């Protein structure tokens, strides 16, 4: 049985409301919370029927769990998909932070585990593990978290990266319908897929051709985990207009710098999917209305569904046929596109169920 479709949206960052494209990949405005705008965005997302907002992690961003806690106090139903890089704190402490959040916001927290995509950035945090070992550490970390959430009162664990004796916490995970937060795990490599199949509720990946996505998702789906796509969309009344809006992104005065900054980032990244998507960026279209035209300037998350509401809905249904059940979206303009998508595309998907 295929899980019902669910839609999430990436939280707007500081500086996003102005809609300008910044010259650097790590824009300094994004590091400053813009709490009034972000709160208004979350309230609207909640009304539009968005399931959760993704709160990113990175050296250029505020800490996601602290920011999400504040946004949660100003919303009622919206969930917060908090990104987390395991390895930078004790798993017991992390569970304590997540559980504390849950008690203060009726369990409205889900987790997006990512292994980190830049060895240089990991070193800012004092982490020097290579790519595959980061996944091995993530496996141990997530195993400990899962056991702490499973209701075991005392957790003993001895692995290569963690040794816990009688691990416990007094603050439980509190939610109306769950004993543990929903766990998403992002990453395109074989290691990421394996850990996701084993320990996550949903494997998250970047956009790609439908065929590639179908092939790579199959083993994860067989194991019973869901698969979600992190992808953008540009929906307009005509296909022509949508394509014009998408291509206009590349006419920004800063775009040349962004291309340089993105190329440098990809060169320094040890993420397989970041490099793979950069390769895809050689073609403008990946079939149907899947657009890869901005990948080499704006990164892997900029693969976008570009077209009319009908085009975008059809493409989503094609993904659905190969087993994709969740979408983490963003678009341009960052706020307006959420409105357009929810008002124009969501009804088409509901009627085709």
């Amino acid at each position, binding site marked *: 049985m295929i899980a019902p479709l669910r839609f999430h949206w990436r939280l707007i960052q500081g500086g996003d409301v102005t809609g300008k494209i910044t010259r650097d990949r*790590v824009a*300094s405005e*994004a*590091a*400053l*919370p813009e*709490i009034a705008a972000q709160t208004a965005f979350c309230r609207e997302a909640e009304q539009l029927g968005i399931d959760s907002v993704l709160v990113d992690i990175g*050296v*250029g*961003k*505020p*800490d996601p*769990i*602290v*920011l999400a*806690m*504040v946004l*949660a*106090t*100003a919303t009622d139903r919206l969930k917060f998909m908090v990104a987390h890089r395991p390895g*930078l*704190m*004790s*798993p*017991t*402490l992390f569970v*304590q*932070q997540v*559980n*504390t*959040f849950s*008690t*203060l916001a009726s369990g409205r927290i889900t987790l997006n585990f990512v292994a980190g995509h830049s060895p*240089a950035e990991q*070193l*800012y*945090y*004092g*982490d*020097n593990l290579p790519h595959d070992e980061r996944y091995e550490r993530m496996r141990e970390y997530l195993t400990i978290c899962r056991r702490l959430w499973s209701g075991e009162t005392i957790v003993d664990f001895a692995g290569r990266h*963690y*040794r*816990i*004796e*009688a*691990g*416990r*916490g*007094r*603050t*439980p995970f*509190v939610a109306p319908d769950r004993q543990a937060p929903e766990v998403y795990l992002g990453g395109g490599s074989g290691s990421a897929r394996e850990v996701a199949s084993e320990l996550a509720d949903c494997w998250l990946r970047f956009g790609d051709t439908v065929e590639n996505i179908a092939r790579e998702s199959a083993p994860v789906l067989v194991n019973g985990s869901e698969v979600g796509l992190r992808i953008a969309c540009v929906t307009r009344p005509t296909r022509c207009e949508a394509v014009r809006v998408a291509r206009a992104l590349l006419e920004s005065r800063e775009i040349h710098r962004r291309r340089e900054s993105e190329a440098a980032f990809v060169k320094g990244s040890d993420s397989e999917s970041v490099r793979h998507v950069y390769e895809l960026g050689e073609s403008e279209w990946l079939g149907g209305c899947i657009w890869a035209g901005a990948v080499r300037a704006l990164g892997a998350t900029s693969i976008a569904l570009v077209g009319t509401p009908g085009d975008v809905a059809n493409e989503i249904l094609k993904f659905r046929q190969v087993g994709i059940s969740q979408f983490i979206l963003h678009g341009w303009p960052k706020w307006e596109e959420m409105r357009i998508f929810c008002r124009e595309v969501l009804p088409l998907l509901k009627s085709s169920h």
Partner: protein
Amino acid sequence: MTSFSDDLVDGPTASRADPRKPLRFHWSLSQAGNPFRRATQTEQTSGIPAFQAQLELCRFADEYRIDSVLMAIGFARPDPIVLSAALGRKTQRVKFMVACRPGLISPTSFVQQINTLSLLLEGRVHVNLVGEHTPRELRYYGDWLPREGRCSRLDEFLTVCRAFWAEEGGEVNFSGTYFHIEGGRLNTPFSIGGRHGPEIYLGGNSEQSAALAIRHADCLWRFAEPPGRLAPAIAPVVRSGTEVGLLVSLIGRSTRDEAVLAARDLVERLGDSAHDAQLNFERHTDAAAFRSTFALARSCDTGWATSNLWIGAVPFLGAPAIALVGAADEIADTLLEYKAIGVTQFLFTGWPDDKEMTFFGEKIAPLVRERERIEAHA
């Protein structure tokens, strides 16, 4: 790593103790809503925050100009950073003194969490570093370092954090035994146009704690002792320019007799189960601060270390229950007596907190301020 004693004059320069500066008062928040704090085994306490009761105490603190509330850390409590984010958005003035155990998180991640919290709370964040605790509990978190190692790790942790908070900014590079940071930077600052980093508090009665505080902290927390005993112990810290603060409970009433009755009543109400909880804690702690206060309590038959400093509840409620007991003017006098030997800050606990904070805010604090004004003009 240089030895601590070489660095006696190397404290942060922003925090020189100044007798003309008014005393600063903080309050312990974590057990608000639980009238029997510490009287039960931690195994039995609930880790679900009593949010409304805590929010109410924070609002009292806003009203009575308490500088900050201490957000303690431990397996039996909610996480202090996340809880501060929720409480902070519903208060205006009070700051949040967030406790941290350095072995459990990357210093860079910690700074990123603290800076985010501070930006969201208009800079209303201090940090309180905890180096000493029960090794058994640290292993719940995967931390196996013995006590000696924990001290030098705390030193490294604070060195890295302070580099991220330094006014001059720039890349952070550090290579030590416990942390190796390369090219570190964070785009999220502690504040925009205000302080570059939080005030750093550090607790402990040991000489190592004092040396670490001199090196890294704005203020050293110690448990209260009679002023005569305390003065020589804190003299090197005071001389270095790092402030000294006292952790102490308050039992203030309209008259001394009433206060003494309230103190005795407290012990009677809490009884033997509290005593067992404390023995259990004492057995498993390696913190010098706790052990020395327990020893002081056992050496003193009458329960009174001075005419106002009562240690009768320590065997039942632990070291934080060493209390200033008396009428408002007596307690105000005692606070100023501590100020005269160099103590500049106090972290109070009350039984219960809301009533005690009201008494402090309405009766004791005005007397302290009045006497400080008189002294400033003398």
